[in-house]
């Protein structure tokens, strides 16, 4: 049986945990064994090739601290922001920069407060990756903001995964709870300094209470060979705003599953994603937005730029429950194929059980606009530059949604760098 020995060894390394915690892990692992890794026969995984993942021999990360090169922090720092650094899921206070917000933001290691895990969205789940995560979770954070706190600068979360020697599986659970009338912008980056293959599997539980605003940007850049899975569960209360941007710059196999439950009235939900793919990259975004109460609005915009033999998947489901009258929802997926071999699968869906709603969805995949290319060339701009200009413009519709200048500039420059690299390899 898969990982059985590894699980026994792993349990010993966490033997200091309470009985409840250990039972929770055992239970999850038992359920994982029953289900196993999904195959392409599962509707939800039909585009995802997990054969390599299932075959690879991984070591399970057990939350050990490693010394890291301080240049990593320097290289990734964002000016005018607070910073929280996690190394292999463990909070590193020396490298973090919390200043005065330490008084009202509490950052905890998940492993030190295991009851955080007993969260409804993580329990009773039949997703094998969430079960695997529950069994092997070693780290993560719990960021809690009290009521009536407006955090003045963005909070930069740097997750550094570090192992020199082996293929590693790393399971992390992060929790964000924004109390009433509060506001924060988080930009989260996972930096994988592994030389070897990494399987990174993270579960997020996010709660946005009444009248609160959370902006959460997730930046993923392919550094070495890795499988990245994010399972993001969000609950919104009355008058809250949840805004997220998922920026994937490359990825061997990356998948974001977002599930937003709009449990309050007058909420606003804005989910957008930008994926830049080349080589054999494979990036998936699966979203579920459920309008459970009236008078809320949700917007989704996912854009993919696919080069070479890369593959993108977008699967978005918006459900409007019978109570959720006056829902206003839009879902858009736009994709540019830069190569004949690139492939995009797009499946926007709507399920509406209320009668007084405004909902739309759409998807468009195409090559670069020939007329736009000719237009730019006729102004003296060479073919390659014309193409990059159009691609940049396409990408900017997502990054322009980011209102913090320093963060937007970093993302734009990372995107430009990536496009320039791609251009160079073609010349």
């Amino acid at each position, binding site marked *: 049986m898969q990982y059985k020995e590894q699980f026994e060894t792993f349990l010993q390394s966490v033997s200091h945990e309470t009985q409840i915690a250990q039972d929770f892990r055992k239970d999850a692992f038992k359920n994982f064994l029953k289900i196993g890794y999904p195959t392409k026969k599962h509707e939800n995984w039909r585009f995802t090739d997990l054969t390599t993942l299932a075959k690879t021999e991984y070591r399970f990360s057990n939350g050990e601290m490693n010394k890291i090169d301080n240049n990593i922090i320097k290289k990734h720092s964002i000016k005018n922001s607070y910073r929280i650094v996690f190394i292999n899921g463990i909070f590193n206070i020396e490298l973090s920069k919390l200043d005065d917000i330490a008084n009202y933001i509490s950052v905890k290691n998940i492993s030190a407060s295991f009851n955080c895990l007993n969260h409804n969205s993580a329990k009773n789940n039949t997703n094998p990756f969430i079960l695997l995560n529950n069994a092997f979770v070693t780290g993560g954070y719990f960021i809690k903001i009290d009521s009536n706190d407006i955090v003045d600068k963005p909070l930069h979360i740097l997750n550094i995964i570090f192992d020199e020697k082996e293929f590693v599986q790393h399971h992390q659970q992060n929790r964000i709870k924004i109390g009433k009338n509060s506001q924060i912008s988080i930009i989260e980056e996972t930096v994988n300094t592994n030389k070897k293959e990494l399987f990174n599997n993270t579960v997020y539980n996010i709660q946005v209470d009444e009248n609160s605003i959370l902006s959460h940007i997730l930046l993923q850049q392919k550094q070495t060979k890795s499988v990245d899975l994010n399972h993001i569960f969000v609950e919104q209360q009355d008058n809250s705003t949840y805004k997220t941007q998922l920026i994937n710059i490359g990825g061997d196999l990356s998948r974001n599953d977002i599930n937003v439950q709009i449990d309050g009235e007058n909420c606003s939900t804005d989910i957008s994603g930008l994926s830049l793919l080349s080589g054999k990259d494979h990036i998936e975004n699966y979203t579920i937005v459920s309008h459970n109460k009236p008078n809320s609005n949700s917007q989704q915009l996912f854009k993919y730029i696919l080069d070479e033999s890369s593959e993108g998947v977008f699967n978005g489901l918006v459900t409007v429950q019978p109570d959720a009258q006056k829902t206003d929802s839009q879902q858009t997926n736009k994709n540019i194929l830069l190569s004949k071999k690139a492939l995009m699968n797009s499946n926007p869906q709507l399920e509406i059980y209320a009668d007084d709603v405004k909902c739309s969805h759409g998807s468009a995949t195409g090559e670069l*606009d*020939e*007329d*736009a290319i*000719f*237009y*730019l*060339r*006729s*102004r*003296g*701009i*060479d*073919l390659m*530059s*014309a193409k990059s*200009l*159009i691609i*940049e*413009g*396409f*990408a*900017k*519709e997502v990054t*322009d949604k980011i209102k913090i200048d320093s963060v937007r500039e970093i993302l734009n420059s990372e995107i430009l760098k990536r496009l320039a690299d791609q251009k160079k390899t073609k010349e």
Partner: protein
Amino acid sequence: MKNMLEIKNLHATVEGNQILKGIDITIKPSEIHAIMGLNGSGKSTLANVISGSDKYDVTKGKINYNDKNLLNFSPEERALQGIFMSFQYPAVIPGVNNTYFLKAALNSKRKYQGKTELDAIDFMTLIKEKLKKLEMDESYLRRSVNAGFSGGEKKRNEILQMITLEPKLAILDETDSGLDIDALKIIAKGVNNYRNADRAFLVITHYQRLLNYIEPDVIHVMIDGKIVKTGGKGLALTLEEKGYQWLSDIPVTD
């Protein structure tokens, strides 16, 4: 004076359909030529072939520009050598800021001419002065190229690009269509102020209206891919009076 543009027996097809069926036009510096004709007569095809659009195939004939075979050059090379087309339907490019686009285009040209590229400050000074000439608002600079522009705004944007890039040969493809009379006057003023001894214009239109404001030296009438008549500016008035029918045995429909 030397000829700037020589089009000889030009034939061109689009998707296998013969559109241009033997065009001969010669333009000298300082001249304004007008091509008039109904929709579908091949006027825009000619403009696009001169600019280098690869949607069209030249099957016969040639185009010389300053004694060089123009058909050997890419669209960007043609632009750098001084050819400019004001598009009938300018492309919309979402997310690409006008300032950024115009600066890239101008600097590409300056580089080609061996001049130093303009920095952001010098460029802004230059472009603001050009905007004033066309009575355009500065907010235009922050918008994406032609995105959400009205028909009139798009045409003004084309002329703005023209007076910024300072071409030698400017082709105005139906620049007057969709413009109200005030906008038309502003654009005509832009063109007239911009005439000089080294510069030529090829103005494509199907109405005589524009030619009241931009006075051509030569008028060509195009029907079904051929120039059927060439004459002075009086020809426009005759056409306005009698229609295109009198020039052709071929039944034409608008």
